């Protein structure tokens, strides 16, 4: 299984919440934020929030500028896409630019996995011609070890250099302890 092919959390788990909301990077016309960490027994989810203004390409509605999202039809160059990486305190990391395909064999359970979706966007249209926003849901497995958990990004096309924000991995572990599994014997939710 690829690090990027990860089932979405089963709806029968109500997550615990870690109170994170931080601007990861911003310029005059672009802001990248990480917010809403939802902690599950086997991993955590978060929201990547993008806000663009001024000179927003109208095709943002069609082609979200995130690495690894899908095959961009016109083969957009890598520097037009936002690359997001999650780094554990012990040095393990996973990026949305990691390849979707993986070699044969069972996945390494200790290797961090990152999945995306769902996401919702608005703007770059007749109502908001000069603004665009995206809330993209990501999920990481497994849970991080105690210590700093880092979110980093780089987005050359929007003038965003390598940027980093850290949160306390222990806070996510504490939130995971409060997650509630509603129907533990649910045969449709074996991944959680």
């Amino acid at each position, binding site marked *: 299984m690829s690090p990027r092919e990860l089932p979405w959390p089963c709806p029968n788990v109500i997550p615990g*919440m870690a109170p994170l909301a931080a601007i990861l990077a911003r310029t005059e016309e672009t802001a990248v934020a990480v917010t*809403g960490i939802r902690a599950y027994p086997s991993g955590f989810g978060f929201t990547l929030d993008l*806000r663009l203004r001024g000179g927003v390409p109208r095709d943002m509605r069609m082609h979200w500028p995130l690495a690894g999202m899908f095959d961009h039809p016109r083969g957009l160059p890598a520097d037009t896409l936002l690359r997001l990486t999650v780094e554990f305190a012990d040095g393990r990391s996973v990026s949305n630019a990691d390849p979707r395909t993986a070699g044969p064999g069972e996945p390494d359970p200790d290797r961090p996995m990152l999945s995306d979706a769902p996401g919702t966007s608005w703007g770059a249209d007749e109502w908001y011609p000069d603004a665009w926003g995206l809330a993209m849901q990501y999920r990481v497995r497994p849970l991080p070890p105690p210590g700093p958990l880092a979110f980093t990004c780089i987005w050359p096309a929007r003038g965003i250099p390598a940027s980093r924000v850290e949160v306390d991995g222990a806070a996510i572990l504490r939130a995971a302890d409060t997650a509630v599994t509603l129907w533990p014997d649910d045969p449709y939710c074996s991944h959680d």
Partner: protein
Amino acid sequence: MSFFDRPARVARTKLVLAAWHRRRTEVLPGVAPVALMLARTDDTAVALTDVRGYPNGFAFLLRLRWGPAADRDEQPPWPVAMLGSPDPLGGEPFPDELLRFGVQFADGRRVTNMDGYPYVPEELPPDQPVLTEGAGIDSEGGSLGRGAYWDLDQAVQPLPPPGPLAFVCAWPGRGISESRVEIDAALVLDAAVAAVPYFPDGGRR
């Protein structure tokens, strides 16, 4: 008197949007460490997470869950009153199949999803809380073939006063009688204080 006694119908209404709906480039809301189980039975749960504080209100995710059903092909009905009309029930009794949900401030002010939500009377006093869509995380949900889930992004404005903040629900059709969970409103108020502008100029250029 029930928390969910329906208010009187009014002739003139207006649609309410979250104050931050039209200018979503302005504020990254703070997040409160809140995850609540409002009610739970063997096959139904009503939970609340993702509490976000804005300068003029707060949003949250109402998470509704149905467990595995005997009939895997059963199509669950939408569990809340349909939006898009100021009078979706046309004066008919509120069906037991619909979730009743409300919020109560420490000073007694309250708002529910009964009747015309998210429409309110035109002459609503400005300090009366209103319930509307959250304008942050898109609501989603539906059948999974063996149950169902809905994540509904909701918002209440204005911010609550200090003291207990109550979330109340009832769902007669799912065997849930009136259930109430209180948190300290300071959790929401602290999140609102932690809200920061996406851009230093507040997004107002």
